[in-house]
């Protein structure tokens, strides 16, 4: 039962700027769908018990949540074609409730699929080279990457070829299908870390060595969850030809020594923490030296093959400034704000990167309706070579828009409630689904995000505050990245009530840090007020061009704690 209407087909002339599945990939995905269809059939007729079926369901991204099943669809390194986006919208309409949730893992979650429909949904995904494999379970998960990959002005090299190379290596790899715990890899090729590489099991940074060769700085042992750790550099430089061999050496060491006795101590971050980075480095180097490298001899050629599919789109030669843009900015202040906040520098003259915020004031962070998905698909066909990105901040990126087209694009987005000019600002909040959907949650997180964004709904005030990352999780699993939010909010249960713990000083970038707890938990109602006091204090104390996190670092945690103590004494009841 597949969807096949002409709407789904991308424009014939849309260029291939991203990896195209070959016959091997296509067959593999289709076989998996057929296999899962059979497993669902056997579950429904009772041949499989829930215990037997559960691992199969999870291997295909299907969870059971509070109100329904949930299907997590992989969006490798956050890259989507317009055709794929349209298909996601069609699935939302046909088998779900008309929307989807983009996550911090650059994936998409459907909140209402039925078990009986899931094989058809997976088939509809397979038709556009998508799937839900390895979005759950103790395997190497979807590799995430800088959402500005390939277009950022500060880039050493596009990380997507490496991410795709890793996707192929890690997909259904028999040695890594039953790891002690899930395993997440993130990669950046830029001088700013937009991929939170220090908060992943493995973080990779493309670097150039003294002789100009490009290789990888390898970081291990980062992670969030109940025990957060910032990753540590295990090797400053691994040449490209040795990347897979080196990663395989890490995986083997982890597979051998990672704790399988306790799920909470099973991540590689705990191994690195308990044994120390020196011991792990020595073990990895020993494994790397001893292993048979013949299997890796084709790696360089294979990498080149993959890299070739990421050809740049046919950019036009344009002047770097657009008079059309300048004029529109002068005439339309709302558009001017959008450009200064949501538009970033592109490496090609005359082009820009556009961040489409999925965080309207009082909205649900990361949610997009099927209509909005179609608007985005059409917009990128018209203005952006048919390509989109999902960012870990739960926004959508149009990576290549001509400066001349920005105003028309903005109008199109605005008509679909997609033009909120808040990228990176205080209302661009990362939030996990929390207790509104998630069965592991201890408290709600979405209503907290909504209340904060309402509190700061004055956009001029938001711009005055500047870059400020608020991140919210509904339980200690930290899917909403609260540990690395300049302001983090963690929902807990205290005496049968939802209670929120606030942390300050988290940072997802190259200067990564884990936030420190501000004080006792507060109620849901109090969160926006507490945050407002902190922000006001920052505004009063900040030096020129100083971001919240930098003021916090300069003044120290105690000064911020004092703010609340004082407010409490003033009778503000915090």
């Amino acid at each position, binding site marked *: 039962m597949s969807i096949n209407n002409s709407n789904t087909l991308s424009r014939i002339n849309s260029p291939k700027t991203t990896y195209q599945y070959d016959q091997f990939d296509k067959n593999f995905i289709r076989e998996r769908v057929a296999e899962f269809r059979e497993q669902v059939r056997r579950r*429904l007729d009772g041949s499989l018990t829930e215990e037997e079926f559960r691992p199969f369901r999870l291997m295909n991204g299907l969870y*059971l949540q509070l109100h329904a099943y949930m299907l997590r669809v992989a969006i490798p390194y956050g890259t989507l074609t317009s055709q794929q986006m349209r298909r996601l919208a069609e699935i939302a309409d046909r088998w779900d409730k008309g929307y989807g949730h983009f996550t911090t893992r650059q994936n998409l979650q459907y909140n209402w699929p039925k078990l009986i429909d899931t094989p058809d949904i997976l088939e509809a995904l397979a038709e556009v080279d998508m799937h839900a494999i390895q979005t759950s379970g103790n395997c190497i998960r979807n590799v995430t990457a800088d959402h500005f990959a390939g277009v950022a002005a500060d880039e050493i090299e596009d990380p997507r070829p490496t991410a795709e190379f890793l996707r192929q290596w890690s997909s259904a790899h028999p040695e890594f299908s039953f790891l002690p715990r899930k395993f997440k890899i993130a990669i950046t090729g830029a001088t700013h870390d937009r991929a939170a590489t220090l908060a992943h099991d493995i973080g990779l940074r493309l670097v150039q060595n003294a002789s100009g060769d490009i290789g990888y700085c390898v970081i291990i042992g980062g992670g969030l969850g109940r025990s957060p750790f910032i990753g540590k550099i295990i090797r400053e430089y691994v040449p490209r030809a040795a990347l897979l061999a080196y990663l395989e050496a890490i995986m083997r060491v982890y597979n051998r020594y990672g704790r399988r006795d306790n799920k909470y101590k099973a991540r590689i971050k705990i191994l690195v923490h308990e044994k120390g980075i020196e011991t792990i480095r020595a073990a990895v180097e020993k494994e790397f030296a001893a292993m048979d490298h013949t299997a890796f001899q084709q790696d360089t050629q294979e990498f080149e093959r993959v890299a070739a599919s990421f050809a740049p789109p046919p950019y036009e030669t344009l002047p770097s400034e657009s008079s059309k843009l300048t004029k529109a900015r002068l005439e339309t202040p709302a558009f001017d704000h959008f450009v200064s906040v949501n538009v970033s520098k592109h490496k090609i003259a005359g082009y820009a990167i556009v961040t489409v915020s999925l965080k309207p004031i009082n909205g649900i962070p990361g949610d997009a309706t099927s209509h909005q998905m179609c608007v985005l698909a059409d917009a990128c066909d018209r203005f952006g070579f048919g390509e989109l990105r999902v960012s870990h901040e739960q926004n959508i990126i149009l990576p290549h828009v001509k400066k001349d087209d920005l105003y028309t694009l903005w109008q199109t987005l605005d008509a679909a409630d997609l033009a909120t000019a808040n990228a990176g600002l205080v209302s661009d909040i990362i939030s996990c689904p929390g*207790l509104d959907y998630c069965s592991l949650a201890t408290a709600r997180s979405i209503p907290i995000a909504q209340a904060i964004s309402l509190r700061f709904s004055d956009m001029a005030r938001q711009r005055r505050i500047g870059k400020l990352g608020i991140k919210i999780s509904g339980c200690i699993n930290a899917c909403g990245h609260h540990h690395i939010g300049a302001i983090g909010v963690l929902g807990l249960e205290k005496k049968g009530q939802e209670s929120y713990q606030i942390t300050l000083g988290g940072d997802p970038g190259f200067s990564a840090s884990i936030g420190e707890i501000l004080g006792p938990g507060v109620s849901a109602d109090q969160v926006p007020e507490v945050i407002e006091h902190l922000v006001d204090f920052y505004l009063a104390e900040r030096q020129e061009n100083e971001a919240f996190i930098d003021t916090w670092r300069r003044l120290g945690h105690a000064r911020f704690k004092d703010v609340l103590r004082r407010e409490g004494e003033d009778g503000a009841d915090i």
Partner: protein
Amino acid sequence: MTKFKHPQILLASNLKDGEVVFLGHNGWERDFRHARIAKSQEEAQILETIGKTDYSANIIVDVYLTDVEITDDGAPRPLHYREKMRIKGPSVRHDLGKQARGAPDEH
């Protein structure tokens, strides 16, 4: 089984579509107001036994008892906020879940 302190209802997820269901007097109900309320340890055990049987019969999954109080109109009202969410639907989308079909809009 933990000590019986409050009335209880048995809830689960329907295998085929994942919707939250409640054990009623004639099988599984989609509206919690039709849930059968156990008022003693023995009654709760009966519910649990039926739950186990239907789990083995592949009708429902994730089945468990939850504490409730009984409201004036005789309907059960979960004591914990998690189950209060489950009988209604997401608190941020009143147009979805059971509440969209007319379950009471009260926590």
